């Protein structure tokens, strides 16, 4: 995100502090983006309390719990990668990033099986089974697909960021003295974790 020099005219202006500040501001926009969905969720849950409770029975708490543990752990490995590069341990940092990416893959695999099972049971947007249900349940599953889907999209973006950083470490562009891009990617990943921390109880734990 920081400015870089293309030519002699533009001097290299490096400001890691400014880059982190820009990243945080970007994270706020992500937070508010999901915030809009949480407002929709809050209103519909308030209006259709019973139906939300009934619909949530369909979700598998164990799958949700497993994904929570996976994401929390991956967040730890991402944070550790920053420490590793600060300590000059580039190999370890790379290893930790690969572990984080693997956890992200596990999360997505889990999600895939979860959604497949739902679709197999005839619960997907516009399906006859879903449309036969009461309104509150239609809204619950609409929000379930949209919110976990948008979150999954963010998981994918996070993985792309990490793969990009791994490449840049290989090219010597992210180093123990210049690692703000790794820091910012880790910040993004923690935000993905943060959103899941709220999605998990709101969808899986309202029995």
């Amino acid at each position, binding site marked *: 995100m920081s400015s870089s020099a293309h030519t002699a005219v533009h001097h290299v*202006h490096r400001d890691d502090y*400014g880059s982190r500040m820009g990243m945080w501001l*970007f994270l706020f926009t992500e*937070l508010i983006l999901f915030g*809009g969905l949480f407002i929709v969720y809050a209103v519909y849950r308030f209006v259709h309390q019973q139906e939300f409770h009934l619909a949530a029975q369909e979700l598998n708490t164990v799958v949700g719990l497993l994904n929570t543990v996976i994401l929390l752990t991956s967040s730890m490995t991402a944070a550790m990668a920053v420490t590793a590069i600060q300590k000059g341990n580039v190999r370890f940092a790379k290893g930790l990033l690969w572990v984080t990416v693997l956890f992200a893959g596990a999360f997505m695999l889990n999600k895939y099986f979860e959604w497949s099972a739902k679709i197999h049971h005839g619960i997907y*947007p516009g399906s006859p089974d879903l449309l036969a249900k009461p309104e*509150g349940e239609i*809204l619950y599953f*609409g929000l379930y697909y*949209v919110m976990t889907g948008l979150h999954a999209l963010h998981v994918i973006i996070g993985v792309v960021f990490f793969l990009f950083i791994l490449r840049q470490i290989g090219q010597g562009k992210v180093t123990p003295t210049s690692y703000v891009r790794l820091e910012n990617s880790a910040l993004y990943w923690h935000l993905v974790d943060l959103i899941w921390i709220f999605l998990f109880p709101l969808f899986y734990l309202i029995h």
Partner: protein
Amino acid sequence: MANVAMPADRAEPNYLEVTTNSHKGILGWLLSVDHKRIGLLYLYTMLAFFAVAVGFGFMIRLELLTPGKTVIDAQTYNQFFTLHGIIMIFLFIIPGLPAVFGNFFLPIMLGAKDVIFPRLNLLSWYLFIIGGLIAVSAWLMPGGSADTGWMFYVPYSLRTTTNVVPALLAAFVLGFSSILTGINFITTIHRMRAPGMTFFRMPLFVWSLYATAWVQVLATPIIGITLALVMIERALGVGIFDPSLGGDPVLYQHLFWIYSHPAVYIMILPAMGLVSEVIPVFARRTIFGYKFIAFSSLAIALFGSLVWAHHMFTAGMSDTAMFVFSFLTFFVSIPSAIKVFNWVSTLYKGSIQADPPLLYVLSFIFQFSIGGFTGLMLGALSTNIHLQDTSFVVAHFHYVMFGGTGFGIFAAMHYWFPKMFGRMYNLKVATAAWAVVTVGYNLLYFPLFISGYLGMPRRYYDYLPEFQPYHMVSTVGSWILIFGLIVMFWNLWRGMRSGPKAPMNPWGGVTLEWTTQTPPIVENFREVPTVTTGPYDYSRYESAAKEGK
């Protein structure tokens, strides 16, 4: 003052002559990360979109000249006012001041070489262009462009067979562009100020951009997700807002206005900042109440996010919500009024020099005040029930957005033109164009207050014959306005091509942009300036005036 600082002769090539990359010609512009070149890219593209939207506005007014069909059919009319709204809002009014003049002058006013993320800056211009092209291209697709109005209210936007998704996608992309500009500006203001440039020495235009940028960052994502939800609902049949699936259309309106009310402050705040720049220069006085104006920008940003549901008084909200939102609406007028008082106090006893930039600013104050007061009438519950969805609302909105921000953009063009292009336009023609534009503008919109008060609904294709006199005056006003705009832009264009060379500081401004070369060099300053005083130090003029010189 400033002309002491540097000789007028050019020692270094300016930004129009050299770019930041190795390309020549058009690529030297399209790939340049120089904030000034990006500002001009925004200027030209924004004006192109503006011309298109004026064309749609002209057709709307022409159609309303007589009851029944005049030139276009009802469906086309619906699509035209939708396109007019989308283009004017997202491609002209919102980027008008921040993306064009903010990009160009924010770094210079701070004494910086560029914004902090120059490549991100270029990316947001590309997103702007992509969004704009998507918005306009929907017109050419089978099914035609959206006919929902720029608010895309559900459930109609879920049911219509026109191309709503491209319009929503365009607004989404443009929102992303706006967010990136906001992030860039906030970080630049925090990190790139020259030595000695404390927050309270920043020009008020910068303060207003700061407040605007925060609203851009914190409110825009809400419209992003809301429009995305409508797209998802249309494309995949997910139940979110559709009442036949249990959804609540009023919730859509809440989310839409949570962004779109603060968005009107994204539109007006930079114009207020511009007014605060122009007035001290043309009155030769230090601005009255600097800190009040600076903080009122932040106060407007804050209060502006507490009042969104005053757009929904007839939508079926709870009585409590109606009371709370109406009550709070009155508070927004306080910081706006503080600004108007301070501007007028600055003009009082100043040595006023009535050049075109100040003339546009005076029109701004006059028209913004009318727009503001009629806003109070609309914010009060009882009168709102009567006036909601009439042309009174249309008139109010255009008085603040066009009479305010639009005229602010025109003022900015005339104020900074010599610095941006190094040449001068014809002042007499500019003054004449201002007079025509102001007369045409008021003739166009004022009758809509009266017909709206008498019951003329907004967005109607047909109307009762008793409203025709108002529509006729209004349509004639639109012709005068467009004529004035053509003269204004022709004059600026001619000045840019062949006007006389402009001096470094034609108006006698004291902010940093008037201390750089005209046009500015690539990195703005030969050496980083050090700031020792506040932004509008006219004490020399004022003491001279006191001694009666």
